[in-house]
């Protein structure tokens, strides 16, 4: 029997973003920072918009953050998300000063507030792909 195929959209990973995705696969949050002025930037990109350095380093993020905003996706738009709809997608302020978007797995919308503390977790989708998700930080 064939394994079920993964039918959701997959990231088109570039050389610039590869360390971020590799980190998720190892269940680590790696964030790109400027090697010269150490400003953290996300999503990964070639140039530091503060000092224009193209040298970067990767730092370990804490995975802790607070809710900046959210939506509850009722209409899935993509067929592969139909089975989990409705689902909540959070925009989260990470401690490191950048944001991340990922689904929230353990709360319903009535519990959500701006500033609510959340923690990153990792969802292995395929042997090659791990995606971020959030749960409430208790």
């Amino acid at each position, binding site marked *: 029997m064939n394994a079920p195929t993964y039918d*959701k*959209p*997959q*990231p*088109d*990973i*570039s050389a610039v*973003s590869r360390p971020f995705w590799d980190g998720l696969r190892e269940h680590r949050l790696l964030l790109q920072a400027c090697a010269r002025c150490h400003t953290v930037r*996300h*999503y990964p990109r070639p140039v530091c918009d503060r000092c224009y350095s193209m040298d970067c380093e990767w730092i370990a993020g804490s995975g802790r953050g607070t809710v*900046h*905003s*959210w*939506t*509850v*996706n*009722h*209409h*899935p*738009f*993509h067929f592969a*998300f139909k089975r*989990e709809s*409705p*689902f909540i*997608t959070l*925009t989260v302020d990470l401690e490191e000063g*950048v*944001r*991340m*978007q*990922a*689904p929230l797995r353990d709360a319903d*919308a009535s519990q959500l*507030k*701006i500033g609510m503390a959340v923690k990153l977790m990792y969802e292995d989708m395929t042997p090659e*792909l791990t*995606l*971020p*998700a959030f749960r409430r930080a208790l």
Partner: protein
Amino acid sequence: MSIRDQACVTGIGETRYTRETTRSQAELTFEAALAAIADAGLEPKDIDGVVPYVMGGVIAEDFITNFGLPDLRYSALTPMGGASSVAALQNAALAVAGGLANHVLITLGRGALSTGRITDRIGQMPQFRVVGEFEMPMGTVAPAQFYAPMARRHMELYGTTSAQLGEIAVTFRKHARLHDNAMMQKPMTLADHQASRMIADPLRLYDCCLESAGAAAVVISRADRARDLRQPPIYIGGVAEGHPDSPSTITQRPDICRIGLAKAAPKAFAMAGVTHKDIDVAEIYDCFTYIVLCQLEDMGFCAKGEGGAFVQGGRIALGGELPVNTHGGLLSQAHIAGMNHIVELTRQLRGQAGARQVADAEVGLVTGYGDLGDGSIAIMHR
């Protein structure tokens, strides 16, 4: 040097707007373009500049071939999604003011469902490349989902309500019902809006624009060439484009409740030499109700956070203080990516809007909004 009042809209043209079509985007575009050229009292051979829509299925060369243009000497693209049409006004105004062309044709054709659903189309647009990698894999794949967190945060910070968004949808539907080329003729009440299904909370079905097939076109002429043409010239007094911080992802934008129009609007008002009180009618890009509310704030018609109260009580309806989207907009007329907004503003300022006419409309504005927050604005007058 300013380009204030150096360029005019001299011709407008539209096809019928429908949900689906068997005609190509090119056929629709040529029909609207020929109508706009005829409306101006020009011949196709008079067109010496073209700014077609990037996603419109035609390139400048197609106009040479189909219209037999003898000397097309100016062409450009303004790849700003839904902000493209109004950004093209800026581009064309510069071209004619700078003497590079006399009559520039701007076109926009869409095939709606006949050319694929929006979620299929945006996957190919470069402005979605970043979110394609970092957000679409987790299920944020369509514009409603990208914009919902902007609206949600606005609600949480300022107390904006779904009923206030509904007032926008209901008002535009009323306007559409006065237009014989508007797709949505069924009445809509606030209760209908509130009962419409949730798409991406807080955006309901009736907060979302239509998908449409059709085309619209305008001719921009240098002011000294415009005065002798068939229609009264409508002057472009001020025009500007603006890009938000973090333009390619809303998630990383410092203030997700503010968009590129906030940077563009003061420049357009200054160029035109008018104030908000001078604006008699506004055609505002309305891919979603919330985006209208946000633009009213970002243009300075009210303070940030006051948009919800601003749109209530009939202020944005015909007969109100600031009639908005007198043709029904993308929400109720058709989604022609805002070219239909330019056509409607021109009609209003010419005094040709029939039952929808804003009395004594002398000065008006039109905006564009493109993924994921680009803005454009033109202030025009008769």
